[in-house]
């Protein structure tokens, strides 16, 4: 529940309330109406009324409840004007029940927590519906940001660099499919929950990454996607406080987001982890992230999930005051567990790099060469740059130069390219000195 500072102006309150609470009001109305569009429109109208009346009449005591009640009344007005009597009667009955708070409490096992607003929180079921696997992945992301995050179609389009009509069409199709295909509006039963929860987490992580990777694209609203992903993941954690992977994902996001200031250099470009000014890391986010990781690992012991493990790795990096003080044996051990839980060539590569840092370049290189033989990562520039780096440290300059060149053939990110070119130049200079 949002706390309102009475000294704040009413417009600011409405705007903040919209970000924080519109998803909640939409979720509640969808439950009663089974109609995404009507719910969204009614909630938007309620916020418009708030914007028009609060500045003169003052902010009500419980603004969130006021919004839901007003949206409910707007929906009732709209329904009364509709023709289809059968659906109308049922929707009106459900809306009336919202007021008394009785609703289907007796029949619904997964009733949300009513909290201090007196209105049950339906956002969890909305999340699961928006992230249903029967929807196209793009549509899951757009629908989640639209209904739960309150982002406009335009904002979503800008954030994902796609035309606005494309997003609008994705949303229309997704809502139609939810209705026509009978996608349920509920928290999945226990047998489906693990699979579906990982689907929700994947959508939230995708939103976060979309914002995170774009830090070197100035002027775009993408950094806001990180904030939005964190905000929605906080809601998920609030509603499912004992799901270790939700905790792990929130921790992972916070720990990465803590580095946002240091990730961007004076020229506006991305700075690699080992070169970041760690005094610019956000200590509060790190503190919170580390606490969440601990909790996630404790709850999930002895079988931590991939998000908790990735967050634990990020936490170890975060706790090193300088890059050369990183606890590499710990990171290598965590990658070892991650490789068991979620085996992939990329995890294996990261693990090998950590082992090289912990046990010396020769040990790491032997592992990476074995990995290279599989051919799985031939097209991945980081395989070649990791090899190049270890060869350089072993003074095998000619091979190192060749590997840097392979990496440069594949790299696309300009910051990474500049970094590799610098390293290549160093290796070339070094090989000249040796010969």
């Amino acid at each position, binding site marked *: 529940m949002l706390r309102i500072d009475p000294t704040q102006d009413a417009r600011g309150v409405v705007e903040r309330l919209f970000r924080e609470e519109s998803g909640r009001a939409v979720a509640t109305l969808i439950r009663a109406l089974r109609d995404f569009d009507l719910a969204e429109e009614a909630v938007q109208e309620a916020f418009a009324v708030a914007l028009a009346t609060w500045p003169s009449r003052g902010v009500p005591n419980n603004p969130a409840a006021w919004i839901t009640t007003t949206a409910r009344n707007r929906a009732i007005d709209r329904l009364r004007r509709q023709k*289809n009597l*059968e659906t109308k009667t049922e929707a009106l009955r459900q809306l009336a029940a919202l007021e008394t708070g009785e609703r289907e409490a007796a029949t619904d096992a997964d009733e949300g927590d009513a909290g201090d607003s007196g209105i049950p929180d339906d956002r969890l079921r909305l999340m699961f519906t928006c992230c249903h696997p*029967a929807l196209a992945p793009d549509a899951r992301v757009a629908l989640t940001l639209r209904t739960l995050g309150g982002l406009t179609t335009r904002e979503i389009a800008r954030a994902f660099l796609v035309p606005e009509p494309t997003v609008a069409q994705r949303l229309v199709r997704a809502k139609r499919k939810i209705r*026509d*295909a*009978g*996608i*349920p509006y509920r928290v*999945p039963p226990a047998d489906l929950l693990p699979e579906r929860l990982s689907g929700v987490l994947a959508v939230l992580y995708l939103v976060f990454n979309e914002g995170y990777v774009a830090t070197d694209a100035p002027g775009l609203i993408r950094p806001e996607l990180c904030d939005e992903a964190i905000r929605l993941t906080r809601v998920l954690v609030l509603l499912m406080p004992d799901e270790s992977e939700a905790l792990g994902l929130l921790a992972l996001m916070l720990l990465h987001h803590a580095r946002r200031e240091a990730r961007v250099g004076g020229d506006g470009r991305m700075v690699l982890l080992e070169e970041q000014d760690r005094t610019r890391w956000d200590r509060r986010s790190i503190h919170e992230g580390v606490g969440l990781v601990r909790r996630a690992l404790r709850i999930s012991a002895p079988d931590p999930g991939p998000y908790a493990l990735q967050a634990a790795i990020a936490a170890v990096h975060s706790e090193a005051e300088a890059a050369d003080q990183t606890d590499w044996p710990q990171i290598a051990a965590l990658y070892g567990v991650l490789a068991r839980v979620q085996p992939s060539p990329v995890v294996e590569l990261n693990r090998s790099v950590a082992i090289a840092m912990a046990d010396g370049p020769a040990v790491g290189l032997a592992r990476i060469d074995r990995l290279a033989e599989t051919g799985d990562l031939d097209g991945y520039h980081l395989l070649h740059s990791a090899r190049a780096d270890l060869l350089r440290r072993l003074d095998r300059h000619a091979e190192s130069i060749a590997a840097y060149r392979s990496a440069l053939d594949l790299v696309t990110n300009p910051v990474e390219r500049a970094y590799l070119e610098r390293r290549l130049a160093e290796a070339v200079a070094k090989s000249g000195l040796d010969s």
Partner: protein
Amino acid sequence: MRYLLLIYDNEQTWANMSQEESQAIMGDYFGYSEEVFGAGVAKAGDALQPTSSATTVRVRDGQTLATDGPFAETKEQLGGYYLIDVPDLDEAIKWAAKIPSSRIGSIEVRPVLDFPDAPGAGESAG
């Protein structure tokens, strides 16, 4: 809601199977049919003759044109169906995943388009 579960698999896969293998799958099908009809979920269900028996019919300019073969040449062919009645898509997916062909082919889950019969109710349909 009613859903049609359309069973697609590669006829060649079936043709290349040993007798033991195909009999094992047929056994699974009998078991599944018993379960899905026994639960009162399935309203209908059939296996189809292979696409080599198919005839495609079109009427153009009042002329009926019948041609040999299926509507479209695809890697997997429609080989059968179940019509089920369940509360929502999650239930339909659960029943689709139990069809033996889901392991070797694919099941397409299609909601049935209902036209409400009540007079006047049709104006909001679609």
